[in-house]
């Protein structure tokens, strides 16, 4: 027997619990005193924002599922029933619907943060890779969620995206049949998408737990990209970063609420207010905005199989990013060339998104090809070479020295921090 945990909580009830299941000690260690670099900027809010969004999505989703019917004949009207008859159903649904967009906004910023400050580099490779798994799970969940209202764009989006798998030789058509549960997008498809849309967020919670667990082993990166060298470089997570994250959450909720209350359908497509009709293909099938860059990559390649490979490849390349980037310097602050090129990568992603919303004709084809070319070249060619060629700026000795501008000795010898 390992014996009881030696809890020092003064409250006898909490002490009794903590001695047998040291969950309070754990929370205190991981979220209370957890040493966190003192120099985070507001980019470091976005992980917490994504966490808050996931929780809100699950809570609203559970209430939506209480009134939703995963049946091709009833789904569309059951969503309208939620909007019109269920108490505050419109609020719950609009929070959930716009929440998907908010989730991708904060996740994309979170990923940009990781790219800009080199958060994927040793020893945080696994932390980063778990993050890519989270992104893939999010995309699958969002895609299946968009199918559930069973509007025109739900139906035709599902048809187009699932059909992509048919590009793979031999196994492709079998995968598609498996996804559909039949020979077209129909009742079995809707039913299994609903089941998986309910399941995957809980898988997400599991992977997020691993993501956070890995983070708490290696510790957070920071805007300087150098490791904390001692207590003078860190602050306890609470109250410093709980308070800073709270500010970010409040601002984020304002943006979210602005969409929910004043432009709830701005990010949606009017076609999804028309019930799904398998006999009538919309003139232009467009995915939700957060998929547009990948959609543009898909359509920039004239061959279907290659297009699908490039589309998936644009995500899978992120898995090996820690080994593609050969520079030992993490933060773009000290990498003058990388600092410009990472913005070029963002630009190429935005251009791809812009092109994805337009028919692949004329200038949009050329633009999306150039942007897609840069996207892949950035990861596969530039990053491996740049690490060897680039001459990084000198790194600061320590976080504290960089933040306070004082030599490290003065800080360690105990002069109070607020003296300047």
């Amino acid at each position, binding site marked *: 027997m390992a014996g009881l945990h030696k809890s020092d909580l003064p409250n006898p009830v909490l002490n009794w619990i903590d001695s047998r299941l040291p969950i309070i000690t754990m929370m205190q260690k991981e979220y209370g005193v957890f040493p966190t670099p003192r120099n985070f900027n507001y980019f470091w809010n976005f992980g917490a924002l994504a966490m808050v969004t996931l929780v809100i999505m699950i809570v609203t989703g559970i209430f939506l599922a209480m009134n939703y019917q995963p049946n091709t004949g009833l789904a569309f*009207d059951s969503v309208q029933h939620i*909007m019109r008859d269920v108490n505050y159903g419109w609020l719950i649904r609009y929070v959930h619907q716009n929440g998907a967009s908010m989730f991708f906004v904060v996740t994309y910023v979170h990923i940009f943060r990781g790219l800009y400050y080199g958060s994927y580099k040793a020893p945080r490779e696994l932390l980063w890779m778990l993050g890519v798994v989270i992104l893939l799970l999010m995309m699958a969940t969002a895609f299946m969620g968009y199918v559930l209202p069973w509007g025109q764009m739900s139906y035709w989006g599902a048809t187009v995206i699932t059909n992509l798998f048919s590009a793979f030789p031999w196994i492709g058509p079998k995968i598609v049949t498996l996804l559909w549960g039949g020979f077209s997008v129909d009742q079995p498809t809707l039913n299994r998408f609903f089941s998986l849309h309910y399941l995957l967020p809980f898988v997400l919670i599991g992977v997020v737990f691993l993501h956070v667990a890995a983070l708490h082993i290696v510790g957070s990166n920071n805007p300087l990209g150098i490791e904390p060298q001692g207590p003078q470089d860190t602050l306890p997570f609470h109250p410093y970063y709980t308070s800073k994250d*709270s*500010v970010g959450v409040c601002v984020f909720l*304002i943006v979210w609420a602005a969409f*929910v*209350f*004043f432009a709830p359908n701005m990010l949606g497509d009017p076609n999804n207010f028309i019930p799904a009709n398998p006999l009538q293909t919309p003139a232009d099938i467009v995915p939700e905005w957060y998929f547009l860059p990948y959609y543009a990559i898909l359509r920039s390649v004239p061959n279907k199989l290659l297009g699908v490979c490039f589309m998936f490849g644009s995500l899978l390349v992120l898995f090996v990013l820690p080994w593609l980037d050969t520079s030992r310097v993490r933060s773009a602050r000290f990498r003058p060339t990388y600092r410009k090129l990472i913005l070029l990568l963002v630009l190429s992603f935005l251009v791809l998104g812009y092109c994805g919303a337009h028919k692949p004709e004329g200038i949009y084809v050329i633009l999306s090809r150039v942007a897609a070319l840069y996207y892949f070249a950035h990861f596969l060619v530039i990053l491996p070479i740049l690490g060897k060629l680039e001459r990084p700026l000198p790194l600061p000795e320590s976080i504290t020295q960089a933040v306070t501008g004082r030599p490290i000795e003065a800080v360690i010898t105990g002069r109070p921090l607020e003296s300047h």
Partner: protein
Amino acid sequence: MRTPRSLLAAFLMVGGLLALPAAAQDESPTPPSQNWSFDGIFGTPDLASAQRGFQVYSEVCSNCHAMHEMHYRDLTALGFTDAEVTAIASTFTVPQGTDDSGQPKEGPATPADQFRSPFPNEKAARAALNGALPPDLSLIINARPDGANYVYGILTGYAQPPADFKLQDGMNYDAYFPGHQIAMPQPLTDGRVTFTDGTPDTLSQEARDVVTFLYWTSNPETAERKAMGVRVILFLILLTGVTYAVKRKIWSDVH
């Protein structure tokens, strides 16, 4: 984005059954923007206008267009009393399941009933209307890009076709319908509806009122949503301020 969506709108409005020449779909004029009571952060549908719009729908549109997401009870939100809603509902005859011998039964609607559908199903509609299928209007404003201006444009856009325009048999010319050929004959004209509240019965008034009504049926929660939104945002701004002050105080010993 506008062009493909308008093309799609054209495609859907003719129900996909009336094959239009592809070239005719290329034109998609943008209807002019009107001022609407429900525009902006504080705008909510003008209830008097929406009530008149309901009259327009009942007397004109409902002869062909269903609104199966709507129930008569919903009309209380337009300012009708319970007694008025019961009276309105009872003027419509709707299917009421089966009688004791198993035969389909009909009777006067109650407030709990869906709006009466003009046709029992799609085939009946197409058979009666030369193959055209009038779309359900419950969500029409949301289901078209810039829906309110679009529907207003269609309703007020009927005109004589230009001399060189080839109009197909049974079709009508409309300045704002994509492709200009619409199966629906001009539904609203000056004097088509006599408003019970004495409002002038011009075409533009009828169109404006029915669009306001249709906006409300597409977004019945608008007034509640926007009122709540103002309070939620004000609260969140306050909360942000307090939270930021707390954060500053906590961080004051660090920098």
